[in-house]
């Protein structure tokens, strides 16, 4: 299906320029794929949030 093709391309483009960990990238793309298939649980969102790296100036260190 066209959407998944474009969505997948867009995900790869966005993820490739982030400085997130190698754990984050597959979990994040899987979350979006599962969300479109309605086969996700809230815990998945929570886990992906926790994997985000704040060292790029997004945190004030607190």
């Amino acid at each position, binding site marked *: *299906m*066209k*959407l998944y093709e*474009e*969505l997948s*391309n*867009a*995900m790869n*483009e*966005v*993820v490739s320029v*982030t400085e997130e960990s190698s754990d984050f990238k597959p979990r*994040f793309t899987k979350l*979006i794929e599962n*969300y*479109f298939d309605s086969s996700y649980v*809230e815990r998945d*969102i*929570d886990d*992906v*949030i*926790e994997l*985000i790296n*704040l060292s790029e100036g*997004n*945190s004030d260190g*607190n």
Partner: protein
Amino acid sequence: MEIKILGWGYENIRRFNTLDLDLLQGGTHLSHVTLVMMRNGTGKTTTISLMRSVLNGTATNWNPEEVRSYKPTKGQASQGKFYIKIKFGTELYHYNLILDYERGRASYETSHVGMSGGLEQGHTLPMQLKGVFTKEFINRFIFDGEQAKKTLSADSKEAELAVTYLYQIEKLDNLISEINSLVQRKQSESDSKGATSSSLSYNRTRMENKRNHYLNLVTRRDKVILQMSQYQTRWVDLENQRTELITSDERLRQDQLNLTSRKALKNNELNSLLQTIGTEVKEPFNIHSLFDARLKSLMNNMQTLKLPKTTAREFFKELSESPECVCGRPIGQEEKVAILKRADNYLGEDDLSVINAIKDSLRNYSTSGELTIALEQMITLKEEIQSIQSALDRLVLHLDEEAIRKAESIAEEQSDIKQKILGLQQERDILDAPYGTPNTSEQNNVAAAEKAWKEAEENLQRATGTYEYTQKANKLIIYINNIRSLALQKLKDSIIIKTNEKVERILTDDRITVDKIDGSLILHDRTAVSEGQTLAIAYSYIGSLFEHSSFEFPFVIDSPAASMDLGVRREVASIIPTLFKQLIIFVTSGEVAGFAEKFYSMDDVLYATIEGKENNEKATCTFGKDYFSAYQCEEEE
């Protein structure tokens, strides 16, 4: 998922007593194209409207008048029914829209395979289509000329929304909402755990107060804008009344016209002069001789200092590679590192080009007295306009006594309104000013209030220990938004290519291309197209849109060719069946020439001729090409 309409029917709906259109005709084969011939005024628009309503589930919100508008004008029917049979994938659904004419209420019944007990009250959709089958969405495949215009109207976001919904891009918005809800829940949980802390309570109240204050300011700004517009409307209304007083007097009418046209002329001159002034003031050397002298002095200094060449970063980089310095001392590793480290303090190649451009501008500019002349002309023009306005104001003095009193009362109200508008303008300017503008604070400025609210929110997040979590969630939302924009853009690009291919095949006489989808379809170098061209572009767009969607929709169109010339009709008729897997076309006999007749040579077309009756006689439907084409001939006669 393949979606197919298998038939529909009416019971006591306007001119239809009972009529059932079984597109399968008792069998199992569904034709690719169904052409339904109906005369104008016999219920085509009613049918399209009921098809939409039976599928979108919104008729329960109709008011009694709307429900009763479907009641047959003759007879005593207390209830009407419109039904549709539709297949979602392999599941067959049957929807009834029940119109209770006595109570003025509409309700739904649904049945589908697997549902126990036959018909059930209410409107039920397959799980995959919940949230997709909205009122707006259904209008995209049960189509008419109005919907086509929306696709190309600059005021509409129809074209973009169609992509967003059909390709379910909005699911990413839902994911963002879920992330926000999760963050809020974490904050509340953390809040309840640390409920003993008084600082937590303080921070929460503070944040809520700041948020409420921000929202109040936003509301106030909207109210101020609305009031201004109301006052402006009233002012114009009063001005018209005043003009009417004067023009109703034969003696004054000509004077009024002469003065008004002179004033308009002077205002135009003033506007063009203001444009010149706007351009001239961008050149400071034209504003005052002091600026001119300073700029010339800057130029001399740059030349004296040989700027920018002598301070180039590249010079130090080259120097660090030399065995010895310009002063003769040797350059070792330690010196090399020190020179390279400090080289960044000097100008680089990119800075040099900017400075050279400045130098060039300084060297070549010449002053002009145009600004001074324009400013003098502006003062004269303003005085002239003021004098014409005074003459206009004085015209009322020549009116009779009663009219003078009326004019004075109008002038008084206008002056009062003018003051009020000025006050509101000042308030709006402060409310809307960018953050940090002098005389603004979070008390009177939306941007400052929003900043204060966001800061208070961050403090609360820190106090609840969810600051870091919230920041991470926000970063995740940014990633998702980026994916959303990119995916949407890629989809739009590919849909535009497909649309343009189709448009080129249909509109052979006129080169029209779609440039982009920015809310609506934006055409290349065209601001207006004919109604027929609008439809051709809209069909091409909708057809391209459906091409790669996960849903295969039927396409139902009302009078697709009425506004097209014969050439475009033929092209549309030959292309439109290739765009959709199921096509139901309502036509009048006037659309047979060039359009419906093109289908006569095609396979897999079902022809239905519906004849609505004026009296109580039943409306009938006759299937078959022969009857369809013969009916057309009778109509023509």
